[in-house]
């Protein structure tokens, strides 16, 4: 469960996120969409405990992120758009490392399964520099999933993946949600959002301009009925007509 109440993040005079409140329930996949600079990544980084919010409250699986950061981070995983890996650890060692960090007692049993699931078992002794961009991304995802997090934060999770891996990745995200994880996913790929997300959170200039299922969002704006998600998105961010495309 992700609970966000009045989240605000300012960098000097620039307010990146303002008055943001929403919830992601267990089993839900919420899509975070918005134009460049809307505050999507800042929001995800605040939720992951990477960036300290200027104001507001964040609860991760019942833990207040500000008061209990370790307990909150213990049950969440943040998978950024660019895989952050350690150049001198092999694929398998990355997983062992993460297993120890999160105290995964059965990591030795989980690791082979994880490697097989993400088609990395042939690369277990490879260093990140010896992997393709897509494989590095898969490794970062494997590191995020190893401890079975209750909350998953994805920032552009499909970047660099091939079509087969994209299909597997989508299935993995949906499966994790079905198992009870709360998933928040930021992406510019509207077809991905449309396909796997149960609700949408649309950001514009750091503020939520829409939050709900597609049906709820369209119901609030009858003129959008029957139009594709792309048109809905452009309308919501004030770029209707595609003049800025």
């Amino acid at each position: 469960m992700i609970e966000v109440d009045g989240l605000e993040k300012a960098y000097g005079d620039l307010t990146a996120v303002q008055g943001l409140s929403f919830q992601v329930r267990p089993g839900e996949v919420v899509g975070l969409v918005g134009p460049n600079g809307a505050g999507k990544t800042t929001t995800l980084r605040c939720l992951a405990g990477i960036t300290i919010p200027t104001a507001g409250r964040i609860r991760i699986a019942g833990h207040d992120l500000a008061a209990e950061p370790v307990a909150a981070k213990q049950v969440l995983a943040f998978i950024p758009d660019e895989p952050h890996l350690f150049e001198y650890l092999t694929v398998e060692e990355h997983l062992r490392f993460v297993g120890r960090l999160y105290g995964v007692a059965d990591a030795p049993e989980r690791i082979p399964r994880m490697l097989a699931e993400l088609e990395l078992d042939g690369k277990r002794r490879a260093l990140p520099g010896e992997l393709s961009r897509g494989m590095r991304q898969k490794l970062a995802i494997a590191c995020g999933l190893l401890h079975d997090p209750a909350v998953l934060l994805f920032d552009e999770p499909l970047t660099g993946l091939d079509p087969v891996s994209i299909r597997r990745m989508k299935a993995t995200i949906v499966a994790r949600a079905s198992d009870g994880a709360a998933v928040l996913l930021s992406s510019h790929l509207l077809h991905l959002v449309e396909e796997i997300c149960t609700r949408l959170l649309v950001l514009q200039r750091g503020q939520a301009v829409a939050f709900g299922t597609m049906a709820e969002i369209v119901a609030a704006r009858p003129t959008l009925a029957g139009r594709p998600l792309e048109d809905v998105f452009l309308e919501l961010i004030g770029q209707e007509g595609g003049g800025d495309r």
Partner: protein
Amino acid sequence: MNGAYAYLVARSLRNRLTRQVARLRSPRYLLALLLGLAYLSLIVGQQHSAPTPPSAETSRWAELLLAVGVMLAVTWAWVIGSERRALAFSPAEVTFLFAGPVPRRELIRFKLLVSQTVVLFNVALWTFLLSRERLGVSAWVRALSLWTLLTTLSLHRLGASFVRTSLLEHGRHGARRRVVSLAIGVGVALTLVWAVADALPELRTSWAVGLRAWLAALGEAADGPIAGVALAPFRLAVRPLVARSGDEWLRAIGPATLLLVAHFVWVLRADAAFEESAAEFAFARARARAGRPQPAPAVSRLRLPTPRLAPTGRPATAIAWKNTVAALRSPRTRLVLTVYTGGALIAGWLATLDDPAPAEALGWLVTMWTGFLLVAGPQWIRNDLRGDLLKLDLLRSYPLRGASLVAAETASSALILTGLQLGLLVIGWLAFLVDPVDLPGLPGRTALLALALVLLPAVNGLGMLLHNGAALLLPGWTHIGTGRPGGVEALGQNMLVLIGFAALLAVVLIPPAGAGAGIYLLLERPLGYYAAVPAAAALLGLAAVEGMVMVRWLGRVLERLDPSTTAAQA
């Protein structure tokens, strides 16, 4: 030089300076600047201007010492210098310049222009630091001499990096293309070995007589025909710096300038290996800065066993484990292990000789180097937060308190440094098996080695905390990443950091060392040498308290550090 390059360099420098000055709005940076200025004034203020210029003898020794120093720096550049660092182009430079309609030589000229910013900064620094010295003709002439020397050395490092890169990238073909450079390098090395072998008997004989006789023999050997040839290029480079009159300087600056021009021509004749390596390195660095992995890093071919990491236990141990694995896989580990193994074998062999002098000399050399590592080691071994701050996003997402992260990160580099020092002390212990008269007996020396085993981790831990603290508190003014600013041209700033750190470490060590010394003196009469045990315990206890206070404070700083700001500053 292409006007666009000059514009790029000038504007980048101006904007960078503006950013640095803007940081002074933060009280933390302002305080650091004021402390830095006070520190520089203290160093200059302590120097006393000599009433007369130095004697010919002083000048001669200064020239010899400087020439040997330059020779060692050049040897370092050839043997273990970082060719990649010397070729550091920014990704933007590669994107705009390498892909542009620009001849390769223009790129090298651009690179040289950029390197001049470091050279000029260090010329200004050295000129300021030596402002009260009478060596040299005047401050301006000294600045010009320094510029000639540092530019030549900067060019030499770049040229050496081209040859090393060419050899690494193209193997035998690279060697063929670099045959002239290699022949000169090998020739100088062989001449030096020949010179040392030629002078060794005389040096050994004079060693038995005393230090004065040994120094005289050393001076004679340096002026001998073989050493004279080997040291000639280095003497030419440093001679303008030690000239005692205008005439002497004019006679010296001509050959030094010729040497500089020869290096310039050499570097300009660099081949495609430069371009490929520069581009590859630049993108690797960009990826690292963006938190992405680098292309396959150079990994030691020596497969060292890595420690096992249990799946459960203190989470922060995983951070220390990661850093240790990285250190074990670094290509330099193989070199260090080879040198240490060789050193131990040589020490053991020397200890069996009838003449104890060589073993004793080796013993003192490694012991002194261990002491030097106390100060220089934390600057060189950066396998801690200084390396990981580029991945601050990742660190911050881990379920760890800031203090745990700081402790684990600094502990790993402190342990690596301690290992290096203990290895040296073991070599010294082996060499001292000849039982020097002015040292305690074997049990005493063994006890001292055991004491070092206990005390060194504490001292190194505090040292690493100081360096990591600087990186956390002043990321905009600290070099972030595992590499460090290198090259002789950056020697001035590195030296200042070294001296400043030594002073800071001394201040931090005063309370625990004072307590330890006090307890030893108090208990020496009843307990004898055993008083060292409670004294060491008191020292360790106080050092641990200091360390914990620093870890907690830096942990809070780390928790408040904004990754986006840090990435931009780095």
